[in-house]
């Protein structure tokens, strides 16, 4: 292999492949390295939500809305079916209290230019008939969508390769190389590789490469367990979240530690994939790097799904899986140059927003690589 590139991207998930694509599109000579394979980590073990109304108004929502705009033409641009569906989304409120929480968020989102509507349950059920009749209602946003994350990463990787990028799975980066205070490349199991810029897009594994420099990245793996149903005829019209998801994400202090569902951070997230299976999630637990599913986690997710969508009681579950979301304390990803370590660009820590933010992350990070 050539041992000099302009940009080395570490990590072949949706973020790394997106960075590789946008950097290659900007004319950079890019090498992407992954110790495993494309989408072998978190991007191959998550759902495909591109949901706007779960984002906090401010930079978080602004980025998400720019990303949503990129998604509309992305499949054509990549010349790859990423199974993008602009289906709209609902966040379900079980109670008046949850509805008030949504109402507060919606008011701020409207100011930021996102149209979200709070629908009483009778109205919500007109377009999503499987919702339980005794829920309070749902917030509806037409801009929410879904995508297949595995195909997204593969589409980015293939398009980057067509633009001249080298995509190299099976190459593990062991350390960052530093010269005169600047990151100048990486040490891999197959030798050293030098570049003007190194992008760290290794998600939950990102802190490891920085600790030798005395930098402790505040990224922690948060496990999400998801159930997969048998392929079913079309039965959901939107991607669905429930307000518990937002509470677990933004107001963990509101959770009741004596309640198992709260303790596991269960908030419903349901989508029907292009192949008919429903993905039903998810827990939000700190369990280290353990990617196994647990009986307690599966049971809690199933109970919550049955509460929100009683019609799913009889559907068959064929698999469960778990992925590690890169959690940060403020809920925002860590993007851009690292103070005191020029040459290194961060693109990690998206937690549950990696799919929604993947295109804009790649585009913004590519702008740093001048």
């Amino acid at each position: 292999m050539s041992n000099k590139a302009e940009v080395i991207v570490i990590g072949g998930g949706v973020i790394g492949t997106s960075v590789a694509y946008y950097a290659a599109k900007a004319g950079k000579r890019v090498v992407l390295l992954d110790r495993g394979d494309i989408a072998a980590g978190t991007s191959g073990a998550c759902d495909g939500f591109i949901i706007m109304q779960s984002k906090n108004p401010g930079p978080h929502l602004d980025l998400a809305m720019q990303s949503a705009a990129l998604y509309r033409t992305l499949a054509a641009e990549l010349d790859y079916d990423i199974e993008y569906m602009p289906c709209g989304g609902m966040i379900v409120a079980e109670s008046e209290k949850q509805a008030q929480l949504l109402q507060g968020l919606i008011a701020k989102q409207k100011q930021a230019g996102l149209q979200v509507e709070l629908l009483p349950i009778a109205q919500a059920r007109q377009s999503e008939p499987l919702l339980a009749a005794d829920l309070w209602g749902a917030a509806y946003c037409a801009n929410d969508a879904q995508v297949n994350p595995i195909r997204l990463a593969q589409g980015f990787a293939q398009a980057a390769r067509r633009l001249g990028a080298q995509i190299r799975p099976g190459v593990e980066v062991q350390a960052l190389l530093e010269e005169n205070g600047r990151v100048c490349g990486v040490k891999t199991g197959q030798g050293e590789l030098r570049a003007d810029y190194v992008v760290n897009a290794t998600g939950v594994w990102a802190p490891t490469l920085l600790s030798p420099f005395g930098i402790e990245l505040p990224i922690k793996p948060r496990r999400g367990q998801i159930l997969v149903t048998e392929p079913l005829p079309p039965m959901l019209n939107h991607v669905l979240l429930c307000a518990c998801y937002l509470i677990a994400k933004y107001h963990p202090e509101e959770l009741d530690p004596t309640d198992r569902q709260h303790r596991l951070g269960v908030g419903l997230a349901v989508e029907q994939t292009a192949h008919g299976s429903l993905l039903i999630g998810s827990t939000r637990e700190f369990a280290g790097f353990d990617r196994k599913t647990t009986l307690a986690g599966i049971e809690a997710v199933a109970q919550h799904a049955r509460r929100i969508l009683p019609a799913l009681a009889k559907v068959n579950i064929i698999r469960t899986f778990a992925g590690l979301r890169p959690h940060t304390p403020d809920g925002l990803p860590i993007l851009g140059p690292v103070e005191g370590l020029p040459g290194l660009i961060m693109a990690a820590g998206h937690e549950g927003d990696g799919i929604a933010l993947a295109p804009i992350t790649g585009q913004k990070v590519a702008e740093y690589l001048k």
Partner: protein
Amino acid sequence: MEGVKLTGALSAAEAASVFPPNERAERGPVAVIECVQQIPCNPCEKACPFGAIEVGPDITNLPRLDLDKCQGCGLCLSKCPGLAIFLVDASKSATEALVMFPYEYLPLPAADEIVDGVDRTGRFVTKARVVKVDTGAQREGTAIVTLAVPKQYMHDVRSMRLVAPGEVFLCRCCEVSETEVRQAVREGAKTVVAVKMRTRAGMGLCQGRTCRRLISRVIAEETGQSPADILPPTSRAPVRTLSLEALAGGDDNE
């Protein structure tokens, strides 16, 4: 249990009743109208530019073919809504006959490809060579395939099945073919999970119980390893499919 009414396919006696005398087929191409049920249908009558097919004013009549007027042009094949008309030609060689039939499956075969010639019920009869695949505009979307078969089978072969390796499905749940799996391995997928990520093989109802060994074998063949060295896929609960409410610990949870 025999006959089109009971099985959907003509019995031997029914087929013999509509087949023209062998001498006629030896003289040149001729239509074989395998229509033995009196149903209200007559597009074949208008389809023939030579007036060789007659149904008459009562459209439930069975069509009658004038063997002398029939020129073997085959235009009627595309007009029969029941795909019941064929063309047989035994004049081209001493040993082979040509059989033409409508074929509405994809992928289409290619000329000179060797395929399985099958009978009216889909059973294998003989290996056959594809002579022509006609997808012209006058065929209105239904391809007409011409096969060369040993003459003794011209009464039996009425369709075909591809035998290309690409048609072997390794993953039956997600319909992933052997060709697709080999392609994925050549593009760098060296484990069962990597093949799954690229092709969906193993993501279906059986969760790889049927295909994982077959896929391991293909990876081993392609990479020169022993199948025992190929990493198995990750196993996850449930071992068998379970309803959501059973997982939730509901009333039906026995």
